[in-house]
């Protein structure tokens, strides 16, 4: 049993994890939760049931805190977010029920493995478009006008007004349902899937996808977290520490985001995702005794793979840039 000082130290150390997760979550558009859940479970030994509950609350904090800055900058497309939230909130309800079922039937290892897989899976489409600050123009379709998918924003870094026209809303909506589902199941904002849905399916600029995603994350997470509240997955002390920490981190993250290169965002995105994703999968398999090496080796292996992948990506970009024209402009 911890003494009074020990409890205070524990509280502030969890809050620090929140600051780190909030900062990175805001920069990448993932939401703090995607980073917070692995950090709390892998480094603090907090049961995943409470880590996901705290993560959802922190995810709302990230979204509320940073979206207020983004809407001011007028980069986030609020109309677009509302139409996609129909699918994310529906998916979140289904996902939350599946989570409750899994925890009630001692299937938490599946949550770990799915968590890790979702993180790693999020990488592939993003890597393919590594240099696309502004996406190639595609032909608008019926959904462009019907759901108001077009817009413009001023890019501080490029010092120019960017006009864009999204398309294929139906494809984006389908991906958003799964984004909502994983939000409910894993206790995250599913920012990665939302970013990818808007980036790949709707073909929107990266800055619009990350900021709009941040905006939507809060509403998706609000749906899941009310269900988590009634299911008893939210531990007030952990949720309080992480919510404050994530808010602080997200605040500074949003200050940095509007001035940062998209390539930097994506490189941070990749390295963290690879490491945490692999480690979550190992932890899940470890729970059913399918991993035959110790935790230190699992950590080292995941870190080594993350470093090698980032180095490969870095040299691949340097010597074989994709989308050269955009890079020259930068």
């Amino acid at each position, binding site marked *: *049993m*911890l003494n*009074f000082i020990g*409890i*205070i130290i*524990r*509280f502030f150390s969890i809050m620090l994890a929140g600051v780190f997760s909030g900062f990175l979550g805001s920069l990448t558009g993932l939401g703090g939760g995607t980073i917070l859940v692995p950090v709390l479970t892998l480094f603090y030994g*907090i*049961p995943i*049931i*409470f880590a996901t*509950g705290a993560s959802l*609350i922190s995810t*709302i*904090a990230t*979204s*509320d*805190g940073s*979206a*207020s*800055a983004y*809407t*001011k900058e*007028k980069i986030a497309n*609020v*109309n677009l977010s*509302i*139409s996609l*939230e*129909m699918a994310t*909130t*529906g998916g*979140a*309800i289904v996902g*939350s029920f599946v989570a*409750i079922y899994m925890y009630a039937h001692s299937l938490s290892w599946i949550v770990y493995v799915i968590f890790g897989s979702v993180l790693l899976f999020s990488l592939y489409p993003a890597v393919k478009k590594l240099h696309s600050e502004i996406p190639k123009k595609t032909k608008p379709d019926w959904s462009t006008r*019907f759901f108001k998918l077009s817009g413009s924003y001023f890019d501080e870094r490029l010092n120019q007004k960017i006009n864009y026209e999204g398309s294929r809303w139906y494809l984006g909506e389908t991906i958003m349902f799964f984004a909502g589902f994983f939000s409910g199941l894993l206790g995250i904002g599913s920012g990665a899937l939302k970013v990818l849905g808007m980036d790949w399916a709707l073909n929107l600029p990266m800055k619009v996808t990350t900021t709009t995603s941040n*905006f939507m994350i*809060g*509403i998706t*997470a*609000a*749906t899941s977290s*009310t*269900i*988590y*509240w*009634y*299911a*008893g*997955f*939210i*531990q*007030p*002390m952990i*949720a*309080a520490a992480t*919510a*404050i920490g994530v*808010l602080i981190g997200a605040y500074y993250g949003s200050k940095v985001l509007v001035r940062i290169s998209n390539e930097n965002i994506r490189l941070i995105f990749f390295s963290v995702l690879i490491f945490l994703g692999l480690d979550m999968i190992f932890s899940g398999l470890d729970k059913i005794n399918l991993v035959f090496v110790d935790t230190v080796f699992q950590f080292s292996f995941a870190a080594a793979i993350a470093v090698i992948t980032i180095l490969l990506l870095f040299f691949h970009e340097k010597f074989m840039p994709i989308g050269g024209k955009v890079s020259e402009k930068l």
Partner: protein
Amino acid sequence: MKNFDDTMVVSHFLRGGSILSVLFIVSGIILLFVKREGDGFTLQQIASYSYSLAHGIDSKDIPTNSIIQGVLKLDGIYFIALGLWLLIFTSISVVVVRLVWFAANKDKKFVIITLVVLFNLFFAMLIVPSLL
């Protein structure tokens, strides 16, 4: 309504809601550390996060209809609970602001879309508890 900048209203709602909820959460934590107890649990129990039959406290133990009473009794747990719910409602308020905006602009299509989102939110909040 043309001069009404809805994105600024949304921005103010988000900022105001976040600040208010953090104030309640921080006050709750201070109260817990000062009183070293909350809602009948000791600080050690509240700080425990082992999820077992003997675990301390989780959201199931905090009835939402007692939050105001708990806050009036200066109970740290209920201050935190109110802060957490304020965060949730801040997100929801954005949808409500959009609904008002679309209705004021007679944008029927987006009014319906926003109502679907609100239905999902209130389904999770009001109907799900009876299913658990």
